[in-house]
């Protein structure tokens, strides 16, 4: 059992346990904090795979940005000490059946499939390569998606301001 294996199983257990707690916790602020733990463990998996930039984006944007946004909106719209009522048992059983059958189907499919890795030599996945390829207009360049995403973010920002603005 190497340290890498132990780290992987630790992150996997954290992700699954905190995911379940996120959707079952009866206090909304705790659910948000459990979601934060899930996102941080996911960043850990990206570090494990040696994708440092992706892990940094995950920590900064997801764990730092989206969770803070969610916590602010919880503080604006809910009472902190209020507990959710437990959903009806028939609803819970139906949802669990749907989720478990879908999960069983997916596991059945991809555990039977054999994945064939590519034969080309791996490239270095460092910051320089990412920056060059993200803004390159050559073959395999990602300049167009990058610009489209920037327009999408601008549109989302304006839309959020207009929707949340008070009154007419």
């Amino acid at each position, binding site marked *: 059992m*190497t340290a*890498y294996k132990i780290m992987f199983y630790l992150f*996997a257990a954290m*992700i*699954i346990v905190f*995911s*379940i707690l*996120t*959707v*079952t916790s009866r206090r*909304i602020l705790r659910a*948000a904090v459990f*979601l934060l733990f*899930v996102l941080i463990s*996911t960043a850990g*998996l*990206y570090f494990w*795979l*040696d*994708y440092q*930039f992706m892990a940094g*984006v*995950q920590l900064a*944007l*997801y764990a730092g*940005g989206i969770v803070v*946004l*969610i916590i*602010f*909106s*919880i503080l604006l*719209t*809910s009472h902190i000490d209020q507990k959710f009522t437990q*959903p009806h048992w028939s609803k*819970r059983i139906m*949802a669990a059946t*749907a*989720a478990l059958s*879908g*999960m069983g189907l*997916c*596991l059945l499919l*991809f555990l039977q499939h054999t994945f064939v*890795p*590519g034969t080309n030599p791996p*490239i270095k*996945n460092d910051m320089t*390569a*990412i920056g060059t390829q*993200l803004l390159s207009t050559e073959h*395999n360049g*990602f300049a167009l*998606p990058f610009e489209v*995403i920037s327009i*999408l973010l601008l549109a*989302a920002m304006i839309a959020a*301001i207009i*929707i*949340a603005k*008070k009154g007419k």
Partner: protein
Amino acid sequence: MERYGIPLEGFLVISTAMFFIGIYGFLVRKNLITMLMSIELILNSVNINFVAFNSYLFPENMQGNFFALIVVAIAAAEASVAIALIINIYRRFSNIEVENIDEMKY
């Protein structure tokens, strides 16, 4: 095809579990913010798949990495618009339970 003794299927099992936990939460929860959290779980599980496939099967290019980056950006945009909508709904109805919001008239 293993890395440090972990096969690709290990990552797929984690992301599948996370995806369907998100589906379960989306079906069971009634509060809009907790439903939004379930959606974040689903998007995050898809990101794990992209990065794992990129790293295990196609290490010669970075498509999976960039696709995951774009998914993160779209998740941020989606969360900001959703939260603006939730705050507006709270102003009109004074709560954010989906069952009480049955009137969509502007």
